[in-house]
């Protein structure tokens, strides 16, 4: 039986090594206004903000966990669920929209089963529909992590997905 994303998340939750989080906190411990850099650092380390690290941060910085949760849900940059190794950003800006970005999104949904802000069960891919990424000349455009793929088509999308799948 394959595990659901939730079960995977639960498992990672249990097995979280707090070492990297502690290191991040150590780095900023004496700085005032340290909550944001700490959370960003933790996300950098884990790819998302595991719950256990929120409680750790609360305890070590003496900030209420509720307050941290408030910050985490306020900013779109923070993620509370594990995210894929590859983040596919599908540009939904005006130019891309006109040139069929919707179809690209649909293709990803069809091939990987993930829509906006969703992650594949194997934690390989996360899809994100974003507003303009500033490459309108190459519309429609997607990004996989830091690599940009312009003038993309349904077929090219397939190729990109296959390439990253092969890389594992």
């Amino acid at each position: 039986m394959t595990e659901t994303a939730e079960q995977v998340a639960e498992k990672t939750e249990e097995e979280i090594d707090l070492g990297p989080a502690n290191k991040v906190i150590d780095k900023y411990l004496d700085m005032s206004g340290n909550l944001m850099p700490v959370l960003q650092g933790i996300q950098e380390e884990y790819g998302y903000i595991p719950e256990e690290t929120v409680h750790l941060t609360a305890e070590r910085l003496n900030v209420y966990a509720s307050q941290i949760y408030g910050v985490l849900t306020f900013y779109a940059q923070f993620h509370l669920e594990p995210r894929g190794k590859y983040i596919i950003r599908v540009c939904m800006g005006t130019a891309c929209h006109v040139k069929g970005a919707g179809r690209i999104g649909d293709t990803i949904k069809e091939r990987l089963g993930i829509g906006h802000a969703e992650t594949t069960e194997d934690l390989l891919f996360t899809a994100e529909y974003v507003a303009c990424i500033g490459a309108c000349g190459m519309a429609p455009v997607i990004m996989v992590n830091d690599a940009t793929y312009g003038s993309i088509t349904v077929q090219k999308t397939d190729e990109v997905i296959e390439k990253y799948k092969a890389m594992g």
Partner: protein
Amino acid sequence: MVNLTIDGKQVTVSKDATIYEAAKQAGIYIPVLCYAKKLLPYGACRVCLVEVEQMKGRLIPSCTTPVTEGMVVTTMSDEIRKVRKTVLEFLLVNHVVDCPVCDKGGECDLQELTYEYEVVTNRFEGEKFDLPTDEVNPLIERNMNRCVLCGKCVRVCDEIVGYGSYSFINRGFETKIATAFDRGLNCEFCGQCVSMCPVGAILPRPFKFKARPWQLKEVDTVCGYCGNGCTITLGTKDNEVQTIRFNDETGVNDGNLCIRGRFGYSYVNSADKLTSPMVRRDGQLVEASWDEAIQAVSDGFKAAGDSLGIISGARLTNEELFLLKNYSKALGTENLDHSGGECYKGVTEGLQETLGIKASTATFPQVEKCDAILSIRSDFYETHPVFGMVVNQAIRRNEAKLTVVADKLGKFTKLPNARTLLHKPALELNIINAICSVLLEEGLAKTDGLEGLDDLKKGLKKFTAKAVAKETGVDEEAIKQTARELAAAENAAILLAYGLPYTAYSKELGIAAANLSLLTGIAGRQGSGLYLCGEKANSQGAIDLGILPGAKGIGAQQMLDDASTGKLKALYMVGEDPIASYPNRGMVEKAMDNAFLVVQDLFLTETAAKADVVLPAVSFAEKDGTFTNAERRIQKVRKGIKSKGDAKSDFEILQLLLSAAGKDAPATTTDAFAALTAETSGYEGITLDMLGKQGYVWGTDILKPVTSKLVAVGGGEASKSKYQLLVGSALYHSGTVSTKAKGPNAVVSEAYIEVCREDAAELKLEEGDLLKLKAEGGELKAKVKVDRRLPQGVMFAPYHFSAMELNRVYTGQPVIAVEPVK
């Protein structure tokens, strides 16, 4: 002072007032939703907008705008009306209008404003919230569909309670109030958020569908639990206490309460309460008439002669204690005592020997203005939670520096910039001594006019900061800094709590704290104070009224000891359940078995079950009288409901007993108050009329020490055992009475042994596992609670739960050496 004009009226207010406060003071009404007297200004709801002549062109939020000289304010105009109405329309876009089934109906600020501003239709349309109701816990129900995002719950939980359950989460339209990870509420359940909520978003669950607010009769009285003496307002209907109403107009607590005060009332309505006297016949307790019972008591006591002891609880009113004292005289015994007889010695002997007084030197509100606070042993957030809130405000609003001398971490240690001198159990004394020693060594002590300085210096020789740091595991520099801070502070406070589970070194700690208060000049100085806070609602009253062994009498422990060996023939227990809560259960049981035993209580307690005569008494909610709290404030206790069945107040019972002994008793509690003030030192001249909304503090706000005598005391002794058990009280409970109340029981219903994570891992224990401990004198077992606040090797168990039989191994020692049994 600043002069301004509001609606044509000249108003003079202090310069830190806001427009809203100035208007309120002048009796001018401005609507508010997010404002609360005790919280910092916030300006979230925008219904308090007013016009200010000098700030034309926009409306000004009155609750956040400070007054300025010559300001001309208008609180109502067509424009203001229109804008306020629009604000209400906005709020009502998402707000679910389910007033008919909302418990807030009838006292909801939003409902009232909607009515006042005649918001009949709404020009705006939007989605209604459809969020699930938080019904996970039994005490506080949160229905976020009714929330207006005023943030009062978030702020009170942070600014006052210091727990931080809530936060605003998400943003824009999606914004809502939630806990961390948006789960069900799991907190201390003090219900401060309930009392602050202007709408029906946060409600007390036990009160759900019990009554409409206007059907309730409100009676102001004093909480019957701890020595903080919070005033509470009972909401009664059908001769039952249905809820505790919010009231920030009376008393010292500013409307703040803890779980016990707000949710711990149900025992007063309990069907398990005794309703008839009982007399033992042929080995069985059977119901009897009052005449028969009083006769049986009189006969029994007569037979015992002067071989009799009386032990009282500290939740009787002053008037009742006065009658009890008279009754002890009538019986010719000086064997009179209360609360286990040891714990209060820090006050009755410690303070008496040093300062010549037997009470705290200052009042609670003064602590809020202190620069430095030293808290010894108890985490007041647990023992006297509302006093803890005062300390929190001193820190947050006045940047007071808090030092905590404790053997475990707690809420106090988490307060901003709190310094914790975390020491090995039983060594509090050594640290206080070390602080005194630093004061003397560094020339910081104010030694003018102090007696006994040389002796103290001699006594402190071995308590240098260095030696004590090594012995206790506390940082040497931290001890020194604490001494320096206390010496430098203009206003400082020293806090020490006492109670049944804290009997060890009671007297010595009182003396050490008094020494420190003398060397720093804290005792008797305006704005500063030494606070020794009793565990029960009238602990201070019991000391003031002299419910103590007389010169020829013996104390509670000796009485029980003597009764257990047959030396003492009769015992009279008034509102005490020693089998459940006194140290050395085995001995106590034997005492109860041997003696002719009269028990006067609300319930058939374990002690009462062994009695020869049981006299049914009533709770604080069913009687009139006065309590004196830990800061010497005498406050009126008022009857909210009539007693059920044949139960009588302790006052009425003692009237009967006195009359059976052929003595006159005051006819009413009013007469008794007049009589007791005439006889009680410090109470002279006080009349019931003088007990206003804030009560009356005997000895005035600052009680000056009569003597200034330093007394050297030795140190405590640490245990060498790998595992050590601390006994104490837990936040959710107070004594044993709260274990009969649904509210506190809903959160913590049974005993537990708290273990730190490291020990849990080593012993392979998980939350909820059964842990067995071997200790001198017996064995203990209870479920494990894994927590982060204990040092390794130290365990903690609350003393409230009789079923655990903790007092089989707890005999009053500062720390119990234990060994986990596999």
